[in-house]
């Protein structure tokens, strides 16, 4: 029997995005694009999630929320920044209330550019995140073992 693998769960949080990327992320979960066929499932609970998908830049108020969600997620975890705002702050970078991209508060693994990010590129990002997650799982297990052995 082929080895059964875990399906990573995906959590979406909207930073201070303009909604454009959010609805594209949502569109990815609906019939035409259906990202769930790549073995992820959308969840609303950070404690269930493995892949953290953030859209939009970070402002002073949601920085804490993003950090908190990140800390609530179990290890290993992958962070996916979707859209130009989430990557760098984008068009809003010069606004007084924008700190910058998601990487100003938490480490980001995969960047998906685009304003708004197209569903195809979001899917590409998610597929890469799934691969990276599996990679991380292996090394993380090894790390845990060596920690226990030590």
């Amino acid at each position: 029997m082929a080895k059964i693998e875990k399906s990573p769960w995906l959590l979406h949080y909207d930073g201070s995005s303009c909604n454009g990327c959010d609805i594209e992320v949502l569109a990815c979960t609906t019939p035409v694009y259906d990202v769930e066929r790549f073995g992820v499932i959308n969840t609303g609970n950070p404690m269930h999630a493995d892949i953290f998908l953030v859209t939009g830049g970070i402002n002073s108020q949601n920085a804490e929320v993003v950090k908190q969600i990140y800390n609530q997620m179990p290890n290993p975890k992958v962070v996916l920044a979707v859209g130009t705002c989430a990557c760098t702050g984008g068009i809003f970078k010069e606004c007084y209330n924008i700190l910058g991209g998601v990487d100003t508060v938490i480490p980001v693994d995969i960047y998906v550019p685009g304003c708004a990010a197209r569903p195809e590129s979001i899917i590409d990002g998610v597929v890469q995140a799934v691969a990276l997650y599996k990679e991380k799982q292996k090394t993380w297990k090894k790390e845990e073992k060596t920690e226990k052995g030590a």
Partner: protein
Amino acid sequence: MEKMNDYLFKIEKVELLSVIMEKKNALWRLVQICCAMVNDQYEITYSFANGYEFENFRLIVDKDEEVPSISRVYNAAIFYENEMHELFGLNVSEIKTNLKDRLYRIDAQTPFKKEANE
């Protein structure tokens, strides 16, 4: 399209509440309140609509002056007045629900407030 001057009326601070009450009694709805900083003065625009009728009232006040709140007449003004205070630093007296700069909870202080020489 009609030109803006046709439906823009300048008012004084003492008139404000009576104008607002008049609109309220005639069942007009509050469309918005806008604040702008022009030549070191605040320019506040109150917009009202009744059906397709539309009127704006403009009040110009000095930087340190206080503006009476209309939130006791128009409940919806709470959000606009808190916004003006938080973003422009305009003093609005006796807002019904004073959120005390906690509407947007931004780090920057009154980012829209401009000094005259800028």
